[in-house]
């Protein structure tokens, strides 16, 4: 029985191909693109102003509301600013950290360091953010309590708190690709650069940075897109500040089409970001 099926399949290479690709294609088209398509379509619908039922009638009212109300322009700019700051901060911390792990630490310690970088990912996202809440709490928080005597005050809940919290959360996602990139970088290149008279900083700028740029881009895609879509951190340590995700969260059960309209913004931003990344050619050498 088994062998007859196999024989039948062997004679039909096209059927084999279809059977192999059916599941992933179905997933990609229905679950992934389908969800995105449904989101886009819903954005053009409206709701019954009283019962809140979605009314499938094409109109551009949601986009008009979004574009004319300065509040939404502000929230887009704010979210972009936060996502960019988080990416920059993560890169600033991740490059020296990854360099130490890949080039300076003894091979035996490298594994331990990688494990240590990964350990925060074992703890729940919520636990970590609530921990930051008690750190940043104005007047009674850990930061004010420990550093208050030497004049350093907690920024309190708000934009800076969100940037700190998200940078802390996504740092491993930046360290790991850069570490992988640095590991592939031969030490002889660094030696050669030194032999030719380049200082440490010059070597970093002209040799290391161009070679790990694709890794940096890969890491930034994580930190940037994860920050762009986050809303829980903003809810817990953002004070009264809201990000794009919060607007979607606030609206999705009351006004689903409007939430869908807002949700197209991060999709558009990410598309532009990926397009820019593609133009730098970093994706090709990943």
């Amino acid at each position, binding site marked *: 029985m088994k062998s007859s099926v196999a024989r039948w399949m062997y004679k039909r290479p096209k059927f084999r191909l279809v059977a192999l690709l059916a599941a992933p294609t179905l997933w990609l088209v229905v679950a992934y693109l389908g969800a995105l398509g449904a989101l886009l379509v819903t954005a053009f619908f409206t709701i019954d*102003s009283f019962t809140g039922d979605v009314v499938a009638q094409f109109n551009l009212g949601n986009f008009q509301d979004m574009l004319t109300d300065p509040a939404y322009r502000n929230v887009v700019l704010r979210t972009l600013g936060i996502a960019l700051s988080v990416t920059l901060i993560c890169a600033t911390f991740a490059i020296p950290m990854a360099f130490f792990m890949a080039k300076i630490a003894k091979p035996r310690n490298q594994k331990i360091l990688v494990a240590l970088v990964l350990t925060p990912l074992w703890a729940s996202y919520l636990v970590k953010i609530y921990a930051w809440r008690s750190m940043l709490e104005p007047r009674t928080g850990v930061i004010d309590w420990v550093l208050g005597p030497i004049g350093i005050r907690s920024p309190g809940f708000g934009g800076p708190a969100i940037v700190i919290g998200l940078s802390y959360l996504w740092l491993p996602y930046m360290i790991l690709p850069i570490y992988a990139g640095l590991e592939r970088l031969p030490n002889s290149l660094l030696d050669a650069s030194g032999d030719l008279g380049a200082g440490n900083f010059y070597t970093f700028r002209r040799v290391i940075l161009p070679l790990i740029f694709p890794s940096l881009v890969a890491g930034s895609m994580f930190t940037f897109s994860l920050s762009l879509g986050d809303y829980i951190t903003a809810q817990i340590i953002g004070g009264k500040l809201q990000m794009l995700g919060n607007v979607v969260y606030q609206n999705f059960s009351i*006004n689903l089409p409007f939430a869908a309209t807002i949700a197209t913004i991060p999709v558009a931003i990410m598309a532009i970001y990926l397009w820019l990344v593609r133009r730098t050619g970093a994706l090709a050498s990943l």
Partner: protein
Amino acid sequence: MRKKRLFSQIAVASAIALVLASCSSSDKKASETTLPKVEMMKSLGAGEGQVNIVAWAGYVENGSNDPKVDWVTGFEKETGCKVNVKVGSTSDEMVALMKTGEYDVVSASGDASLRLIYGGDVAPVNTALVPNYADIFADLKNQQWNSVDGVAYGIPHGRGANLLAYRTDIVNPAPTSWGAVFDANSPYKGRITAYDSPIYIADAALYLMKTQPDLGIKYPYALDQKQFDAAVALLKVQKPLIGEYWGDYLKHVASLKSGGTVLGTTWQVNINLAQSEGVKVEGIKPVEGSTGWSDTWMISSKAKNPNCAYKWMNSIVSPESNAAVAEWFGEAPSNAKACDLTSDKNFCTTYHAAEATYWNDVYYWNTATEACLDGRKDVKCVPYSEWVKAWSSLRNA
């Protein structure tokens, strides 16, 4: 290259298919405010063996949170109806859940109930089939948020007022008016809180109703455009004073405890929780009166287990269960006989359960509609969907 094109063709084709599918599936007319005809249950039959409930956290307890807090197990034994509960965290989420038709019963607040009634999502309730209905406080029955033209759409569950909380050790002198949270020169700037929901616009409207009679506000949920704009403007003045808006009550209690919040709107249950942790906090109903909530058990128009649903609605407002829920959640019970059965004998006094005059200036959450709820015919009022937009805009500005 050819493969790429084929792939994008598939993507486009599937997108078009989706558009067509979603357009043809619902041909509903926009904005119908007529009351949908939904049949009322005539008589009770045997239970279906289960009931699916959407409720506020703390309303359906089977002992898994606290072994002493359990009014579900007894109900299940007595009626043979297994209780499946889905906790809703906001009124809006509850409305969305009820629209799926998967649930039989919901504990709806006043800002959800009318939407459910006019959406045809809930059925009128035959109160003759709910024996415990007779013992419910008269001032809770047949109200704007749980009935239409004298037909009851639900069984009142309990009520509470939104109070003004303040830290007695920090806020001095003690506030007596909501003005304390709207004062642009407040010394507690950055440590004031407000409830994070569009319904909070009514709190601003209530304050204006009492302090600016020129605006002519009669009922905080019936605002014409001018009155609505005034309320939103007041909230914009308030925004710089706010440290955090609260939605999660546990986070709110933690904030009162740490002193991050020292003044702002709250629920009685939060005051109790904070006090039990030793926080010097007090809650008052200010001179202007207050907004509040009065919850109603409603039955889905598409209920698959209507008999068990009626049995549940009767059981949850029985004196025993009603007393237990009210004490666990921290609200005034709706059943007059519940007051004799609370473990704390002063409970009903603390929560003003039987004190009808206490509730005279409490304006229970209600869903604003275009037809003004205060009976004005010459103007159009701002519907709740606009409240949502205004709130979203205010919060993100």
